[in-house]
């Protein structure tokens, strides 16, 4: 049997062009895999219309499944009737059709004979038995079959559950896990072949507990959502809004499945669809997809269902101030206080946590290998900031255990099942420790997976109580920046980590980067800029606002000058620099990464020059880089002096403050370069950046020569843009100040009021953008925009 050491998928098929199938296809396309998307043949002349429609629909979905719009072209529509033979070329086939065993069995019988013997077949089922599905396959195929369960939306949800059957080839599972983690960037949890697997089993239980206790405590749905969102470390959509997004029919289906497939679950009585939910589904109110569900939008107001009357009322959902204060305490005090309080909101919160802890403890040995898998599954699949065992452990294992026992004894829990014995092990302070996490099945602590792919994750997602990551040796520490290195990987490459809040770039960060560069040039072979996401939300606006308020414009001028000196120092340093980017990289953050030698970008990197939103233009070298790049692009054409065609898109990006929706998009927009590295798994960024910096150094790195004769669009380019601005202003679509800021951006990108095609050097462009920035920052309108952004987080139109 072919057991590849490393899986390399060039061509894949996704069976089922539903919302999930099409989105999985989009993710594969981003990973540069040719994808065939299959569905049933349509009746009309165009037999592939269903799959083609689904591919077309990808561009309209939010959040965007396509990492870059042109990726839709990498997905080919197919149907089971005409394209069956094309499956022979697919190395991986992902089945994602409707959740019905009979339909899946019939499909497997139809397609299996067309597959290559070496092809891997996986099912994206969210709850059917993999053993039952495997039984529908010929014995020879079963070794190359397993469950690969993505979460919706698959591009953005980290979790993938990998579910083996007794026949699955162990080496293949390892190869598949490696591929899912590194090539698709997913967080893999090995789940057992139990109904609804791991994340949904706990997550749906939690939702049912929320519904039960919300009703018992007399809380409205909106009040429940206010309590079960970010306040307790869960997503903004909280509970009922999540149900609307998932689809109420889907939810009912999942509840039915739980009841039907878990006859022995002690909590089975909870697996019931509440009457109000059944009534909603019966009248076609299925949530977001029908624009009517637990919530509905009436004009501008959001209304929520009142289950008693069946009517809707305006949603409010206030959390008591005392409860908010209580939730701000440290975990042990917080949980003690919740339990002690008589407030219905507190009683509700304690009850939902307690019953989830109780359920997880009892079910751990049946549904998961270990507690770490449970916690990561809820974090990656449901967006919880901490998993249930982590919360329990943080709250004080023994105290919470005693409280649960007392509640069981008092008949307050949803079920009287006793806590398993391992919970009471003397001296137990939790389930996660430096050596591993508790496995109830094996009654010992399970260390992390030793698959080599995880060695690339220098800072993986860790659970509470786990050993800390190696933070290396500090070379330099200043208020804004820590320079350090990881000798076990490469003692010659320095790592610059920004220490400011949200990694905003203020004066202390600039000083730190400059100091780090000095050390690097003297003692190191290269430099990496890395820290946890976000990469940087921009320049430190607070410092700018303070200087404006104090009228210290000379200080601002010095700051702008220092910003440029820093980015130029990066670009022209004797050692290569590699920015390891994830999440937001805006404004000054974008400028910082633009000036590095190379970039390692997590796929989910959101990069853009957004200064326009606060009435400014990029002045840390951003406009200069864009102008130089436009000239370089023009130079490759027959008319190298005609740079305006290349300046125009750059202007549009700056003037609209557009942010790239992925690393691939950032390359298209010119903030990153075609030679940059896209890390599908963000946890591999540092590893890849260290390797990239080393490779640059080993290859005899030389800094670029200063660019001296840059052709610019000049006064005609500015006039072209002013023509557009004139129309927008007259049409009432932009304000006079928008015009002013946009014209400044036009000037900076066109090299100022020069003859078109004039040649300038970088110093000219840098001085120009600095000068225009300082003019804008002294206007009352820009200062108002900055204040407004700091106060509200939203742009002001003035």
């Amino acid at each position, binding site marked *: 049997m072919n057991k590849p050491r490393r899986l390399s998928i060039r061509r894949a098929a996704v069976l089922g062009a539903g919302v999930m199938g099409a989105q999985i296809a989009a993710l594969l396309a981003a990973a540069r895999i040719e994808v065939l998307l299959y569905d049933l043949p349509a009746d009309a002349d165009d037999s592939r219309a269903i799959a083609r429609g689904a591919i077309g629909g990808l561009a309209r979905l939010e959040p965007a499944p396509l990492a870059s719009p042109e990726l839709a072209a990498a997905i080919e529509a197919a149907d089971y009737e005409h394209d069956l033979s094309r499956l022979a070329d697919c190395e991986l086939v992902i089945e994602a059709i409707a959740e019905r065993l009979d339909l899946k069995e019939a499909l497997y019988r139809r397609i299996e004979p067309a597959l290559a013997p070496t092809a891997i077949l996986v099912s994206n089922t969210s709850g059917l038995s993999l053993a039952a599905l495997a039984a529908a396959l010929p014995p020879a195929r079963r070794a190359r079959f397993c469950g690969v369960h993505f979460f919706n939306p698959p591009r953005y949800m980290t979790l993938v559950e990998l579910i083996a059957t007794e026949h699955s080839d162990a080496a293949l599972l390892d190869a598949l896990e490696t591929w899912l983690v590194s090539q698709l960037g997913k967080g893999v949890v090995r789940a057992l072949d139990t109904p609804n697997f791991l994340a949904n089993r706990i997550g749906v239980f939690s939702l049912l507990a929320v519904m039960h206790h919300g009703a018992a405590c007399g809380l409205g749905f909106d009040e429940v959502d206010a309590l079960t969102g970010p306040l307790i470390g869960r997503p903004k959509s909280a509970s009922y809004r999540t149900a609307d997004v998932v689809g109420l029919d889907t939810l009912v289906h999942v509840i039915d499945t739980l009841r039907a497939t878990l006859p022995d679950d002690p909590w089975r009585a909870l697996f019931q669809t509440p009457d109000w939910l059944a009534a909603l589904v019966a009248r076609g109110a299925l949530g977001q997809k029908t624009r009517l569900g637990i919530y509905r939008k009436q004009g501008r107001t959001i209304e929520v269902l009142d289950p008693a009357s069946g009517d809707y009322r305006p949603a409010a959902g206030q959390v008591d101030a005392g409860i908010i204060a209580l939730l701000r305490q440290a975990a042990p005090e917080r949980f003690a206080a919740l339990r002690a309080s008589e407030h219905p909101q507190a009683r509700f919160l304690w009850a939902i946590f307690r019953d989830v802890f109780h359920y997880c403890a009892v079910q751990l040995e049946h549904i998961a290998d270990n507690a770490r898998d449970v916690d990561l599954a809820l974090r990656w699949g449901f967006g919880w900031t901490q998993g249930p065992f982590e919360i329990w452990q943080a709250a004080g294992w023994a105290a919470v255990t005693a409280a649960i026992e007392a509640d069981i004894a008092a008949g307050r829990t949803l079920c009287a099942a006793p806590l398993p014995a391992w919970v009471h092990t003397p001296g137990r302070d939790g389930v996660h420790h430096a050596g591993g996490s508790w496995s109830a099945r094996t009654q010992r602590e399970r260390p992390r997976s030793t698959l080599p792919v995880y060695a690339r994750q220098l800072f993986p997602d860790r659970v509470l109580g786990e050993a800390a990551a190696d933070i290396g040796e500090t070379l330099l520490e200043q208020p804004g920046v820590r320079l350090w290195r990881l000798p076990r990987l490469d003692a010659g490459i320095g790592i610059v980590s920004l220490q400011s809040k949200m990694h905003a770039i203020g004066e202390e960060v600039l000083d730190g980067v400059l100091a780090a560069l000095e050390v690097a040039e003297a003692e190191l072979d290269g430099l990496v800029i890395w820290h946890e996401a976000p990469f940087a939300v921009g320049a430190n606006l607070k410092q700018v606002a303070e200087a404006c308020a104090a009228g210290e414009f000379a200080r601002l001028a010095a700051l702008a000058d220092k910003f440029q000196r820093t980015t130029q120092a990066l670009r022209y340093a004797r050692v290569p620099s590699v920015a390891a980017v994830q999440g937001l990289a805006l404004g000054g953050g974008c400028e910082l990464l633009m000036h590095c030698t190379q970039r390692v970008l997590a796929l989910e990197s959101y990069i853009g020059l957004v200064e326009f939103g606060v009435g400014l233009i990029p002045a840390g070298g951003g406009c200069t880089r864009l102008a130089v790049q436009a000239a370089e692009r023009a130079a490759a054409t027959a008319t190298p002096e*005609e740079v*305006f*065609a290349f300046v125009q898109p750059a202007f549009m990006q700056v003037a609209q403050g557009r942010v790239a929706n992925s690393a691939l998009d950032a390359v298209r927009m010119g903030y990153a370069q075609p030679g940059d590295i896209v890390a599908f798994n963000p946890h591999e960024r540092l590893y890849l950046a260290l390797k990239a910096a080393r490779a640059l150094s080993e290859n005899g790195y030389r800094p670029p020569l200063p660019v001296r004769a840059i052709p610019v669009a000049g*006064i*005609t380019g*500015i*006039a*072209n843009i*002013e*023509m557009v601005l*004139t*129309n927008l202003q*007259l*049409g*009432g*679509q932009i304000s006079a100040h928008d015009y002013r800021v946009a014209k400044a951006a036009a000037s900076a990108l066109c090299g100022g*009021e020069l003859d*078109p095609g004039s040649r300038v050097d970088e110093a000219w462009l840098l001085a120009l953008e600095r000068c225009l920035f300082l003019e804008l920052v002294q206007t009352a309108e820009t200062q108002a925009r900055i204040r407004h952004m700091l106060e509200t987080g939203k742009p002001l139109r003035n």
Partner: protein
Amino acid sequence: MSRQLQDAYIVAATRTPVGKRKGAFAHTRPDDLLAHVLARVLAQVPQLDPARIGDVIVGCAMPEAEQGMNVARIAALLAGLPDSVPGVTVNRFCASGLQAVADAAARIQLGAAEVMLAAGTESMSCMPQITGNKLAFNPAVFGSEHLDIAYGMGLTAEKVAGRWQVAREDQDAFAAESHRRAIAAQSSGAFAAEISPYCVRTRAADAASGVVRLGERWVDSDEGPRADSRIEALARLKPVFAAGGSVTAGNSSQMSDGAAAVLLVSERVLRAENLTPLARFVDYTVAGVAPEVMGIGPLVAIPPLLGRSGVRLDDIDWIELNEAFAAQALAVIRELGLDPARVNPHGGAIALGHPLGATGAIRTATLLHGLQRTQGRYGLVSMCVGTGMGAAGLFERL
């Protein structure tokens, strides 16, 4: 011996169907469309020796790239005209095609030529943006008293709508009526006499065979008119040029591709060759207005034209008034008191499309064949022109 002033007669006029931008003629070159109509218009008068043509005057509003390099001369040669026949391209934006007809007539009227070919061609599919292939705006405009040179056409339509109080509802109703008339004309076959169908030849990659797959597709009718155009749907469109404005994509002219040609002769040739004229060219005027209200251009072109020729408005049976925007067309109709029934009986540019420099020649063909069919006497072609001008041409069926 000095030459006599003489009349100029149109003996043939034809046009291509008008395609939507990036539509039927997406990959058809404007010089090919032009060569086609030049050849077709001559074929309609076979007894006339092409060598007698004094000049080929072609209107084009963006004479660059595929329609640059003096498109008139290139297309004349491609159409098979003798080397001895010259060609010149003229540009007065949206009046270019009518300007070509007027210039050709003037050469005959002056006695400088006996036979002239006038035409217009424009492919807006060839233009990456409506400002042409390369935008290079003059910086001197800003800070001058002529900032309105920078105004987009849509914005000038908003200005006209505001100053002449043309309501959104009226604009949408006008647009719907334009489509209704165009569809009615198409179904009654009213355009058959003026259109020379065009065979689009396609060259597509055939991945299976690895060869270039040649295709042919005949285009024989205008692509723009919509049978399903309704006021209610038009009313839902958002204004595109100004926040809170009234000008939408639905009540503006369509961007299009097309060409037309008109053959003119002197009275002497008319008699000698025993030709039946479609009409006599009467007169032509052009005048300027402020660029910011360019849409009311016909207001300064039509009255002097009538005054000079002594023809009363009531005597005009058919008016082709280019519908750049419903707002400006309505302002002109109301200000001059034009009879809506006689204005664009077959619909206008909102439905039929507006291939800028070709429109003047295209609508001349429509007018002259329309007068023939309806046995009308006087007909008028008029339009507003970007940067603030109006043009009007008067024709008389004999």
